[in-house]
């Protein structure tokens, strides 16, 4: 494989990896049965709520990571 092809393939696999990272919040938040429960609760918040809140900064971090890597 020539270096050019190599970097091309790398770029393509990078793109799929990014696509997967951007898809993670959808997977995590569409699996409703997984988080529609009371325990474990955190600081008085049932799991259902703190799990959803947790995914707000996580999503921002994932998008930020993808942005950083593809600049």
């Amino acid at each position, binding site marked *: 494989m020539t270096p050019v092809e190599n970097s091309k393939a790398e770029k393509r696999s990078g793109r799929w990896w990014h696509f997967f990272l951007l898809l993670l919040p959808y997977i995590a938040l569409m699996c*409703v049965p997984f988080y529609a429960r009371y325990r474990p609760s955190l600081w*008085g918040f049932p799991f*259902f709520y703190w799990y959803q*809140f947790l995914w*707000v900064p996580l999503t*921002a971090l994932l998008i930020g990571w993808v942005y950083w890597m593809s600049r």
Partner: protein
Amino acid sequence: MWAGLNWTATAVFIFFLTLVTVVGLFAGRWRKGDLGQIEEWGLAGRRFGTIVTWFLVGGDFYTAYTLIAVPALVYGAGAIGFFALPFSTIVYPFVYAVMPRLWRVSRRHNYVTLSDFIHGRYGSHWLALAVAVTGIVATIPYIALQLVGIQVSIAALGFHGSTWTSDVPLIIAFLILVGYDYTSGLRGPASISFVKAVMIYVVVLVAVIWIPIKLGGYDHIFHIVSQSIASRPHKVPVILPPAQYLPFATLALGSALGVFLYPHLITSILSSSSGKVIRRNAVMLPAFTFLLGLVALLGYVAIAAGIQVTRADDVIPAMFQRFFPPWFAGFCFAAIAVGALVPAAIMSIACANLFTRNIYRQYVKKDITRRQESAIAKIFSLLVKLCALAFVLFGNPTYAINLQLLGGIWILQTLPAAVFGLFTRWFHRGALFTGWLLGMTVGTAMAWSQGLRTAVYPLSIGGIKIPAYAAIDALVINLVVAVALTPVLNAMHVDAGTDETSPGDYVTEPEDAARPGMVAVPASASGDAS
């Protein structure tokens, strides 16, 4: 009408409304451009950097009505109301992946609206018209709901009564909106969005910390809410019951995929200065989502505080009145009113852009000049607002709520043409149009069959119940038709239209090439300096 008026709260309210009026009216001078051009009036010259865009999109997405309706839904229905939180989380990967492409191709071809892009991409003015009309019709009730938000906050100050004089404050707020929209264009709401963000942040942070402390903490609040007590007629589920898993997930997904196709959000996206600005904002905007989640919690706080209201929309104002001193309650109501003015202004500007570019220019006067475009847009933006005001003053507010519910279903039906169009030219324009038409019909029929009370349709296939957001059901039909019909139309050699865009337009950031009527600005000054 003056009896029962809270003077302290009203004085604070008037102070802040005056402040934003002055800011809004002078905003036209900010990064001055020729407001006689539609790109300047309606897109502020595509010059907003990362920070301004953050405030603008934030002020546009998280509307005042959202701040009233989301806790009201949680108060009335419990856990399902929290779909707003995953919805406004998963919307951002979508924005990151899709919107920079739309920005780049629009910048390259001077598109002002989504329909401009559809027209350029598919060479079909019918498909462009379909998207434009869907956008306008979905947005007008949304503007009306912002006015309802202002009405609720004014009523909370103590303006009551059945005479026409009780509508005077709303009409004054309406005139403020008309004034700064007309004179400053998109720069008006953009400058006010700073004030809005600061005010809303203060209100929400104080409310979610101060009130729960007085009530004994969140542990206690969730405990009270999950118990049924005699004094509370309805018990709401704190944890989502299995029957609501699918409605919850589809409401979140359908709203997330559809919301950025609303004209007002497209407008604030296109007014940014680069695709990079949009990508950065996809990272930064979830900060507002966190705030929305906190606002949703206020629905439970209200239950725990034993707030009783006849209309769910009054829950939040009633709670502010109960717990806050008058001056801070006045500040809170002003925040809601200012919070309504920002999206209402952008919505009517966006509708005006669509009408001027894709209806008036296309079907009434083809050789329209840029200056005439701007004049027509200003007039139509006024008409749109009057229409929304008439809704609120003469119609039943439930009409606006019902129509807004339908609007969410309708707007998602433009997704195949708009979003797929940004990535592929595989689809035939005729197939996309037919899909849109069927999606609109089916989605409307589904919501209608539920008496427009809910957007969740209890679909049942072969005895298996699939209760889901009607927008998603309609989108599936829309897609199936578009996919099935494309090869058929191609085989029949039906004209697929000419595509004026090229693949490079979607991926390369156009540097500051000459813009019409504007002096080229050095990249360092026009980019992300703000």
